[in-house]
């Protein structure tokens, strides 16, 4: 009877101590979260701006790009399953460029997330791979941070190219104009295909994309 009593008391005490620890450490995490949140948001914005700067030089627009956004629903032409965003660059009120999120579904290591900038002159302003799982040292040259050729990274080939003729945005091996590395064709081909599709889609929607209210959801 008394042994049972002590066992009950012990487990009750243990439960109480665990509860106290859980409360104290949750409080510690909550405090850290509140304290770091503004810094984390600023860092995220800066990171996004760095990618945007890479596809579109800051001199080509003068508006608040990160606020001038149109939300996209799932868009098969862009490879977007969950939806994505279009950033709109303007200069002196005139349309300057659209920066479109797109995905190449057929990379060697799965999906390759891309940022594609299309200028108002209907030419590609720049392309960047923002997230991918291509083989390190082999297919990851699609990402200029991993590309060993620092002077002329592979992905810079897209800069200034137009949608016509239709074969331009394909690898040389497939009859196009883009170089690729031997032995790692799949990654390059996936990016080239996704960029070509994204460019085509953007050009056929650009008037409405520029005109849509900021922050609205685009209805194709």
């Amino acid at each position, binding site marked *: 009877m008394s042994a049972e009593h002590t066992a009950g008391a*012990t*487990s009750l*005490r*243990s439960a109480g*101590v*665990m509860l106290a*620890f*859980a409360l104290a*450490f*949750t409080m*510690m*995490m909550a405090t*850290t*979260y509140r304290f*770091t949140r503004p*810094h*984390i948001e600023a*860092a*995220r914005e*800066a*990171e996004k701006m760095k990618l945007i700067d890479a596809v579109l030089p800051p001199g080509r627009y003068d508006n608040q790009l990160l606020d001038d956004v149109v939300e996209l629903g799932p868009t098969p032409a862009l490879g977007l399953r969950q939806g994505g965003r279009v950033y709109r660059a303007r200069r002196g009120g005139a349309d300057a460029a659209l920066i479109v999120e797109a995905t190449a579904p057929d990379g060697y290591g799965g999906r390759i997330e891309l940022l594609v900038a299309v200028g108002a002159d209907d030419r590609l302003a720049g392309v960047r791979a923002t997230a991918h799982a291509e*083989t*390190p*040292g*082999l297919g990851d040259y699609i990402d200029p941070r991993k590309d*060993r*050729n620092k002077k002329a990274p592979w992905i810079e080939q897209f800069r200034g190219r137009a949608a016509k003729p239709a074969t331009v945005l394909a690898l040389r091996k497939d009859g196009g104009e883009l170089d690729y590395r031997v032995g790692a064709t799949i990654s390059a081909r996936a990016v080239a295909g996704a960029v070509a599709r994204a460019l085509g889609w953007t050009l056929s929607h650009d008037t409405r994309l520029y005109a849509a209210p900021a922050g609205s959801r685009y209805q194709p």
Partner: protein
Amino acid sequence: MDKQITREIVTNGLWKQNPGLVQLLGLCPILAISTNLINAVSLGLATILVMLLANLGVAALRNFIPYEVRIPVFILIIASLVTVVDLAFNAWLHGLYLVLGIFIPLIVTNCIVLARVEAFAAKNDIVHSSLDGLAQGAGLLAVLAALGAMREVVGSGTLFSGIDLLVDGATPLLLFGEHYPGFLLAILPPGAFFALGLLIALRNWIEGRAAARRQRAAAVVPTPEAGTA
């Protein structure tokens, strides 16, 4: 603080009980993140920080933790500390945070942290426990750095790639020129096992030689009994 104990804690962490080469704990992050020197050292530093804080916290609170529920409480403490470190990296070292990604939260599951907390910090005072966390973490960092450097040099012919995430404008070293074809195997997971195997073999070889030397020294110096017999 007793000098003898201090020495023992440090040599245990760095050599005798090195977590990466002897205890072989925490292999998941060691093998996954050591594709280059900067990643490896960064994760090593994050792990040292967590081990130091976890050992410190547990040693300070050890008298309040009931023996029966110590493991869940330890895990709670470690997980909270890792969350704090994760948030701090996200806020102030964002570039690195993106590279290390899932491996910062995964420090929670690194057995070495819980192992040191349970084996050392739960039974020792704050000062010695902190030192143990530091020494064990430093041992792990050394192994991570060696692995990262080996795999990066052999695999991609560079050193310090990714340093621009830490220091603005710094560029990595190109050791064998721009046309080094790379050695993919070193960067892929099997390369991690090979490199770790080589390091363990090296350590065992050095240990073996030291042991042989001790034995020879013991054999050469005759004991008084041996002399009379």
